[in-house]
């Protein structure tokens, strides 16, 4: 494994921070302002891609930015695991930016400058989290994401938005301060370091009881992963404008959450340590509980965005479940699902936004026959839904396949039953929407004519839907990167 010293990861983080300043300065010239967003997204993606060849060869790119205190460094470390999240988030930011322009301008939203500024900060922090070399750096960027997205959730400034945003902040900041932070302090005291290592840093350093306590603190403290009982912030966040729900609450924020769990499980504890003390099993069943309960909650939602939010809660726990199996296939599934779910779910949210822009409809019960009005949008929805259910030929199938194999490898047959049950539940809450959209008659008094959303709204969702299909047919890049991680940690 070759180690390369380079500041490129730092630039990848900073580019959207610079954009934030430029966006703020050009608030009076909307087209210039949006140009900054798009250029930052392109440059950021370019920088991430430029690091890909070295990482594909198994290299690690390191950069030590600042030493705050002895043992507390802000340092970056680009490896296969990190670059998967970075690639996913920075690629989808480009598409979401286009979508956001279409969405925000169509709805004539207020405070757009603040919106684009906070969006750019959140993406900076997402890169930072993906490239973190230690728990401290991860924690910092985790918190920056929370604070910068607060403004986006509170965007409407209606009492409903403000109270939703407060709950969002209370859950995320509260759990991270009360649980994540002490977990970090304990890790530091026992391991003497916070730097990630592919075999873990706590092995042989802390007694088994302490390992269990620290793991519990981390799992509860990383509420962004959406594990019950601290999942309620995600439905609350749905008051945000749809581009925010799409990129941040289906990709950046929640994926940083599960990414942090994966990172900490594999690189702080290590597969051997957790398997040795038998903690993986408990974590797996804990995740199973969230998968099933959240799916049932999703069934009961009539608000489309809320149904998607509960579906996200359930899908995030797939990632946690898969890594908790602690087997090669399980870890593979866990990492791949981060990207695969991202493409599927962002498509679904784009659809929800497109429907709102075109028809101002929010509820599933209003969607009868909408497939005739919005054929492109609803075919995108179908692809996203199939990915969630894990039907071939959509990406979702690939990660679920590995998950099932992981469960067999770990000899945990109950997990297989959970996977089957949750697949059925997924079908139960997505397929009726598809059916209603294409095969039911429209409600009386509604025109069945063609009424698509603006091109800037529809094109992005077609692109992400195509991405979800592509992940089934060409998973090679993702699989290669994942295999590098798996070979190091097991």
């Amino acid at each position, binding site marked *: 494994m070759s180690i390369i010293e380079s500041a490129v990861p730092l630039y990848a983080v900073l580019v959207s921070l610079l954009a934030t300043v430029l966006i703020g300065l050009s608030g009076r010239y*909307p087209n210039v302002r949006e140009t900054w967003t798009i250029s930052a997204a392109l440059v950021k993606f370019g920088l991430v891609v430029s690091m890909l060849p070295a990482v594909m060869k198994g290299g690690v790119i390191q950069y030590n930015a600042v*030493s*705050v*205190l002895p043992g507390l460094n802000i340092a970056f470390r680009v490896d296969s695991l990190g670059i998967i999240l970075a690639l996913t988030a920075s690629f989808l930011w480009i598409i979401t930016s286009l979508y956001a322009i279409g969405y925000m301008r169509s709805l004539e*939203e207020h405070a*757009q400058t603040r919106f684009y500024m906070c969006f750019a900060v959140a993406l900076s922090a997402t890169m930072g989290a993906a490239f973190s070399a230690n728990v401290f750096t991860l924690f910092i960027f985790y918190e920056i994401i929370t604070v910068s997205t607060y403004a986006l959730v509170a965007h409407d*400034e*209606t009492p409903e938005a403000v109270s939703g945003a*407060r709950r969002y902040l209370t859950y995320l900041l509260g759990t991270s301060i*009360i649980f994540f932070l002490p977990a970090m302090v304990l890790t530091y005291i026992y391991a003497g370091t916070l730097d990630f290592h592919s075999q873990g840093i706590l092995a042989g350093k802390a007694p088994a009881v302490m390992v269990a306590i620290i793991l519990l603190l981390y799992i509860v403290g990383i509420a962004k992963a959406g594990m019950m009982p601290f999942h309620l912030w995600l439905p609350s966040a749905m008051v945000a404008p749809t581009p925010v729900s799409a990129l941040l609450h289906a990709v950046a924020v929640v994926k940083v959450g599960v990414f942090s769990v994966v990172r900490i499980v594999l690189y702080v504890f290590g597969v051997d340590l957790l398997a040795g003390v038998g903690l993986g099993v408990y974590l797996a069943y804990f995740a199973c509980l969230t998968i099933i309960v959240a799916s049932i909650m999703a069934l009961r939602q009539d608000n489309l965005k809320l149904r998607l939010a509960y579906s996200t809660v359930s899908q995030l726990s797939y990632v946690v479940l898969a890594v908790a199996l602690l087997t090669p296939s399980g870890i593979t599934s866990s990492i791949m699902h981060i990207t695969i779910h991202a493409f599927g779910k962002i498509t679904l949210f784009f659809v929800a936004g497109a429907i709102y822009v075109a028809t101002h409809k929010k509820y599933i019960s209003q969607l009868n026959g909408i497939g005739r009005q919005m054929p492109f949008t609803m075919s995108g929805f179908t692809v996203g839904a199939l990915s969630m259910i894990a039907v071939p030929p959509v990406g979702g199938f690939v990660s679920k396949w590995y998950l099932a194999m992981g469960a067999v490898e770990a000899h945990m047959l109950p997990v297989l039953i959970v996977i089957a049950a949750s697949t059925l539940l997924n079908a139960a809450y997505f397929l009726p929407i598809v059916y209603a959209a294409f095969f039911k008659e429209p409600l009386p008094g509604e025109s069945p004519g063609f009424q698509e959303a603006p091109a800037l709204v529809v094109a992005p969702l077609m692109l992400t839907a195509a991405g979800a299909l592509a992940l089934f047919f060409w998973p090679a890049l993702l699989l290669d990167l994942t295999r590098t991680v798996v070979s190091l940690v097991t």
Partner: protein
Amino acid sequence: MNKELPILIIVVPLLAAVLTPLLGKLRRELSWWAALLTTSACFVFSVLILQDVLREGKITYWLGGWRPPLGIEYVIDYLNAFVLVIVAFMAFIGAVYARSSVEQEIDGHRTPFFYAVYLLFITGLMGIVVTGDIFNIYVFLEITSIAGYALIAMGRRREALVASFNYLIVGTIGATLFLLGIGYLYLVTGTLNIADLALRLEGIYHTRAVATAFVLITVGLGIKIALFPMHAWLPNSYAFAPSVISAVMAATATKVGAYALIRIMFSVYNPEFLTAGAYNINYILLAFSGVAILAGSILAIAQKDIKKMLAYSSVGQVGYIVLGVSLMSLTGIVGSLMHILNHALMKGSLFLVVGAVVYRTGITSIEGFKGMGKKMPVSMAAFTIGALSMIGVPLTVGFVSKWYLAVASIETGMWFFVPVILVSSLLTAVYFWRVIDNIYFKPAEGDEAGRGRGHGVYGDAPGAPGVKAADAPPWMLAPTVAVALLCLVFGVYASFPVDVAEKAAGILLGEWGGLHVNN
């Protein structure tokens, strides 16, 4: 020249305090210049002293050449230098800020006296820090307190007089207890020099008189630093004092009191006395600090007036400082010292911002902060940084001290203080977030049109309705921003102050090996 620095830093502001009203007779403007020049000179002296200490370790100065213990000795090591720089810096910041703020809040004919008393106040604070003589500490404590009563009484509203009078009564009781304690020590040892006291007290720490002296001194200082439940004087004093005084007092006065407490605890008395024996004094202090941390935060949540909210929050922060020193470990003391720096910067910047709001609008209620993000964008950014630091968000200086305090709690086996610190951080987030919400996410009165949809395709771009920005005048804005930025600078480059704090803590603990850790 360098050898005279410890006395210069006292004599220069003391003389200037006398000259300022005279200069003010010539032209009022001159009294501000006098205060500015004096405080900036003091800041330069303090930095030079810190440099000397970093080079030589410890510097002493004998007043009038009289040899201690008969003469008065000024002794400066890492701890004094650390606190001295903070005090001198905040005094300088206050002087810059005072120009516009005092012009508006204090009657013209009284401004020369204001600056004179301000300089006396600063002299007293710096005197407490540089002296190595325990009776001298009392004298300077009285100078600073009396100047403080006068400064608070100059507040705009009539309540300021009552607040000042309250503080005078309580403060005098505190000073008297402190003096009684010194009396006991003098009776037992016949000396007032701190180093000499430590030598002569060796072996008789647990006699009743010496222990009683400790209790009297600690309670006396407890009142001065507003350790809960001896905090009652503080909220009204801070709330009704002139804006600049609220800021400077919050940033320096309680910190210097904490310094005196640390000196007494570790230089006059020692860790063996505090931890062993029948009293277990450090547990008592720990209990008080834990209660203070939580009570201060809870009381702060209940406030509607922003100055009172910040004042109650100070009560909680004093708890942190006492917590760290009472843990009796190197990490804990470093945490305390960092919190002294940290609280001076963050609470200083917060009070300075509030002063700017008062200058522009006259409002001190939390409700009045609605829509301020548009009216005073730079000031509010400074407020946000201060608030984040209070919460203890990483990359701000607030995180550094809380990190050390949490690590120290676990290291000494007092892990139950970790939840105390965390819960109080959350409570801090609660009371600051109400303000942040008002600043950025609520429209100002009469500006309801500024939100919702229908702002044209380009959102808030051209022609959007909004409030014209009118931030504080530059003399107020520049020091505020400087202090707020320092919260970030020391949050990222914490190694330098931590280095000094570690050396100071090392000297305080001396040969002492530490508590037995039972984990």
